[in-house]
């Protein structure tokens, strides 16, 4: 009897020791993340101008949000950027990683250079790309590099007012976003490729498989877990992107370039609807959690397959 009691007290001590490991993380987390978020949920049920009394309005903000076309448009815009990032950015990153995985010259140079864009601050990137995409002219010559280039190679009809044309503004932002982000995908995918046992390639070669079928049957299956992580990080990063949008088109081109975070900031700073802004934040978090849960489920299926 006494022994069992001692056992369980040892076990209790053991478990509480285990809790000690996560304690610092949980404390910081609870204070700086959970508490403000509960506050946000609370605020989302109120009407508040940022000063003065908070009026409880129940779920009214959320109801209003459901029929707020601009809000859903901004979600779609973020999705559009994300789709570009998922396809263009990641395919580019994968191609570059494949190239740099081989024994080629200047491998180290490429590896360093491809990571420069993520290192630069988004404000700088926005500034430089605004100059590249500038549509103005001085003394009959295009100021912006892109239009200048198009003009000088005889494609004058393709010159455009890139950031003020609803047909191109968001795409330009998406491409710059991809340009900034592909370095991360590149480096992760390259690392993944390096873990693949080179003997597998040799074996495939001996079996007489073409390089194409080796790619599909050896490389891709081995890369699935890495690709999944890259996909999840891409989705989260792209959906929440906003600094680049602000630095490229200011307060936006009508609503063609609005993304959720700029809408949230706009409601807080511009129209001073803090409650509504918080409702947007909660709504957006729910959407992202749902998307990640779906991706998690999908990835589990893929891994089993």
């Amino acid at each position: 009897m006494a022994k069992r009691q001692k056992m369980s007290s040892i076990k209790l001590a053991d478990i509480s020791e285990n809790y000690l490991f996560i304690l610092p993380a949980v404390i910081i987390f609870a204070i700086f993340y959970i508490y403000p978020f509960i506050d946000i949920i609370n605020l989302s049920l109120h009407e508040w101008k940022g000063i003065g009394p908070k009026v409880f309005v129940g779920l009214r903000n959320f109801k209003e949000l459901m029929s707020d076309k601009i809000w859903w448009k901004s979600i779609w815009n973020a999705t559009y950027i994300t789709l570009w990032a998922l396809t263009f950015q990641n395919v580019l990153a994968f191609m570059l990683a494949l190239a740099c995985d081989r024994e080629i010259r200047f491998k180290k140079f490429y590896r360093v250079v491809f990571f420069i864009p993520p290192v630069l601050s988004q404000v700088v990137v926005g500034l430089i790309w605004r100059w590249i995409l500038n549509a103005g002219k001085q003394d009959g010559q295009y100021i912006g590099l892109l239009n200048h280039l198009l003009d000088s190679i005889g494609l004058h009809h393709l010159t455009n007012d890139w950031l003020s044309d609803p047909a191109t503004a968001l795409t330009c932002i998406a491409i710059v976003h991809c340009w900034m982000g592909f370095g991360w995908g590149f480096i992760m995918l390259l690392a993944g490729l390096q873990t693949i046992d080179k003997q597998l390639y040799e074996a495939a070669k001996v079996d007489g498989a073409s390089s194409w079928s080796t790619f599909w049957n050896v490389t891709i299956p081995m890369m699935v877990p890495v690709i999944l992580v890259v996909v999840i990080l891409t989705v989260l990063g792209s959906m929440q992107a906003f600094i680049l949008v602000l630095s490229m088109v200011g307060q936006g081109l009508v609503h063609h370039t609005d993304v959720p975070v700029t809408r949230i900031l706009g409601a807080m700073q511009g129209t001073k609807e803090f409650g509504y802004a918080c409702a947007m934040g909660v709504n957006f978090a729910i959407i992202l959690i749902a998307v990640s849960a779906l991706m998690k489920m999908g990835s589990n299926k893929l891994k089993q397959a």
Partner: protein
Amino acid sequence: MKKIIALVLLVVMAVVGCFFWGCGKKPVNTNEILIWHWMTDRHQAFETLAQQYSEQTGVAIKIQLFAPPDTYSQRITASAQANTLPDIFGILDKKEIFADFIKYGLVADLTDEYKKDDGAWEQAMFPKALEVNRFTADNIYDVKPGIYGVPIDVTNIQMLYNKDLLEKAGVKEVPRTFDQFLAAVKKLNSVGISGLVSGWGEIWLADAFASNYAFNIMGEQKIMDTYQGKVPYTDPDWLKVFRVFKTLSEAGAFAEGVVTKPNKEAEQDFALGRAAFAYNGSWCVNVYHDMNPDLNYSAMLPPKMNPDRPMKIWGGAGSSFVVNEQSAKKEQAIAFLKWLSAEKQQAYLARETRNLPANRKALAAIPEVLSDFAKVMDNTTHPTIWKYNELPKVTEAFDKGLQSIVIGEKTPKQVAEEVQKVKEREMEKQRNRQ
């Protein structure tokens, strides 16, 4: 092993300890007067003046800068919530929010100070500069009538023209009417010079431009009626306002990319002679001077659409400070602001930062181009001095609509209908709330 446990405990203790250490720490308590502002271009001059003041009076002044203005505004909101506002600060928001700050006891009433000595302080200042900080007897915000802020400078927003470029294009006279303006644009475009550039990526500038024409076309009363919901945005006069943008856009009067241009970039364009006209505030004198000291330009009112009514432009106090009602150093803070708005200091600020002074006696110190701006102060108006203001969501729809028209996406009629729809929805919401 003990080392390891000690290390872990240290980390935990450090984390927890930080809070208690933080909690136990008393707020910094000094005799300094603390000022928060957002004016990057004037920071240096403020510092110099604060230094002088300390030397003269022994009262220390501490000035902290937060930029850009969005960040500043957010910080003011957060600090108001946490009740940690400094002794002197500025409110960058609409009059309604200003009124709330007063109602919740965060801003001191300075009326008595202004009225002292037969109103010496009040009379030294430009009335236009004070209006922004004044709540009239019939204000709709339930605020006790009075003056609640101290203007630091005066500003207005109008058009600038590049004399050399106009000459180059053969435009002999500065356009006064809308048709003359369109003709000038045509001539400019034919020699490859852009017409009007402005930083409408900061959308309130486009809003101000529209407001100028609204005043010119229909006058203040009808605008106020619209805000109250008595006149719809589909009214022919409002359609005329929207059509100003369509006409200008179709005539090629706007520089490329105007709708998403940050104002700094627009200022660069004008300073480097990429466009012949600019729509910008009087602060531009300082900016253009730094970018291109040889720029040969002058100021003008936007060309009139309706010859029978005056063109009104936005203007008034450029920036104002208020005193924290809850500050323990209220008296000292007011004394400092009084000193800052006095002739000598205002003249210094006007000279150093090339802004129009708020003190009328300091006007002698300003450069020539600035006096062009000073001359038209009587023509100015500003949303903060209007009796009614538009609901924020309607303003948003209105401004975004202007963008749509400029890029040729929507017609004035479509925009007018959409804005009116938002207006009705927001009015409905307001009624339900009461």
